């Protein structure tokens, strides 16, 4: 794996276009490209861990440990009404493509509507806030892969500026560049849709993620699985069973590193499981089990490239460092501390992880820093293996219901 410094990776905007030809990823992943022979689809997309689209003026709010990429969205069926958008956060903890309305400047996508023509709008609760905006349809291209007629969420549209109270009851809106921290989120997690069957049923069990919005105001509606904001990968013609994230190892903090997102598991010569171990998850929660200091945290661990640190346990747990005085969401040990934990799949697979926790104040002291190994914070009772877990690893995420050489998804492998 070749590490490319920040100066060499300032071309995200071009990555989508470059990826249209096979072997596109030579800058970051030359060793594993090549496809499965003649006619195979280019399935490698460059990703960069950098300070992201909020780093410069006017926000001057650099992201840390965010894996960014670009996607191209077109009006369905068109090859000319298109826009390539950079600064899209790669998130294995969610499913579906969401783009800020403010970033969708040069293409107008068709609105998804109910049978009576009224617009469908979504409220999507993340762990740290909600996104609200219309569901629109796009042909999405990334590397050589295309998801045709993909329902996506457009966040913060001025056409639907009033967020229903039932939606903000889930948390604070993340509806612009400042609050979202990215131009969009590419959810490539183990779930095939963002909601699932719960949203297909009317009545009190419906969680209230999809709304129909006549002029009189928005009301919760049911939404079929195929009309939900789906994981774009499942709509690819091939390479549609999962994704691989490859990032170089990182010591301490740096301006940035680059890596690859490879689509498909065992579908081409460059995406086989190799000697990776498959860890299946509880399909109802998307979690596996983590053991730490002989304590078992059942169904409480998960891999999430969209979390910017390893968030686990708390300072009240024996052996854990204190949090930072000025940032209670991060740990601040005096020096770097070594830890190990064991992840256990529902399939009985088990493996030990060695990782470090550094002083977050030190790691993030410089605003040019975009990547920091050792960044960690409290998360009582839970192991959220965020982006630092991915450093120096090849991490496979298999999508629910899809078959792979390692068995059916959902699972993680590394």
């Amino acid at each position: 794996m070749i590490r490319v410094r920040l100066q060499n990776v300032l071309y995200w905007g071009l990555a989508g276009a470059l990826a249209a030809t096979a072997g596109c990823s030579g800058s970051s992943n030359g060793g594993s490209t090549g496809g499965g022979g003649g006619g195979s689809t280019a399935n490698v997309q460059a990703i960069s861990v950098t300070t992201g689209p909020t780093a410069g003026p006017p926000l001057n709010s650099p992201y840390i440990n965010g894996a960014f990429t670009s996607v191209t969205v077109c009006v369905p069926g068109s090859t000319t009404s298109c826009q390539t958008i950079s600064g899209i956060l790669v998130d294995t903890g969610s499913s579906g493509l969401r783009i800020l309305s403010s970033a969708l400047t040069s293409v107008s996508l068709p609105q998804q509507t109910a049978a009576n023509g009224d617009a469908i709008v979504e409220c999507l609760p993340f762990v740290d806030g909600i996104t609200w905006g219309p569901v629109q349809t796009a042909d999405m291209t990334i590397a050589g892969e295309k998801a045709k007629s993909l329902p996506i969420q457009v966040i913060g549209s001025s056409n639907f500026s009033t967020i229903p109270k039932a939606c903000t009851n889930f948390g604070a809106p993340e509806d612009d560049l400042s609050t979202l921290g990215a131009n969009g989120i590419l959810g490539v997690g183990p779930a095939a849709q963002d909601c699932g069957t719960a949203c297909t049923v009317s009545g009190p069990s419906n969680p209230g993620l999809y709304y129909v919005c006549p002029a009189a105001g928005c009301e919760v509606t049911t939404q079929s699985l195929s009309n939900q904001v789906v994981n774009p990968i499942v709509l690819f013609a091939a390479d549609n069973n999962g994704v691989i994230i490859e990032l170089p190892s990182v010591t301490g903090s740096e301006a940035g590193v680059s890596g690859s997102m490879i689509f498909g598991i065992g579908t081409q010569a460059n995406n086989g499981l190799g000697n990776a171990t498959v860890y299946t998850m509880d399909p109802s929660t998307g979690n596996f089990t983590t053991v730490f200091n002989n304590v078992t945290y059942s169904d409480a661990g998960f891999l999430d490239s969209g979390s910017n640190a390893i968030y686990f346990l708390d300072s009240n747990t024996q052996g854990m460092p204190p949090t930072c005085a000025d940032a209670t969401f991060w740990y601040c040990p005096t020096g770097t501390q070594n830890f190990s934990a064991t992840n256990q799949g529902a399939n009985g697979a088990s493996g030990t992880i060695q990782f470090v926790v550094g002083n977050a104040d030190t790691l993030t002291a410089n605003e040019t820093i975009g990547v920091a190994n050792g960044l960690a914070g409290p998360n009582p009772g839970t192991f959220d293996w965020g982006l630092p877990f991915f450093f120096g690893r090849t991490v496979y995420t298999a999508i629910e219901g899809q078959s792979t050489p390692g068995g059916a998804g959902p699972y993680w492998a590394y």
Partner: protein
Amino acid sequence: MNPRIMRGLLAFLLLPLPALASLGGDVTSVQSDQAKMQGSLRTSSNNSYTLHEIQTSTGVAVKEYVSPSGKVFAVTWQGPFHPDLRQLLGTYFDQFTQAEQAQRTQRRGHGPVSIQQAGFVVQIAGHMRSFSGKAYVPQMLPAGIRAEDIR
């Protein structure tokens, strides 16, 4: 309504309607909230607090900890979606959303919520389709109850 003894201290009671109190609120003043989250309720108590456990209609397991003086000093939840946090956090909700938004920027990225204010603590973990959370008012914890005891 057959109470049964569990582990010597806990008595479980099945009730026909769920009650939902807000953090910091008075448990006797929340009968109007009963219809808000439809589902099953069980109540148990020990010497330090009364625990109301509600399974909401969307599959979220909510627990409310009520002090001997009748105040809700802590709430927890776990399930595929968030519960109605405005309902659950009550007068702390606006404080929560302001702190949540500020923390997203301070954190320089996304991650679980960990708000530690002098009079209000809230932690939210998880990912799409699987969330858990815990909120409490430190000053209202009954004697002998630590934050770690709230699960």
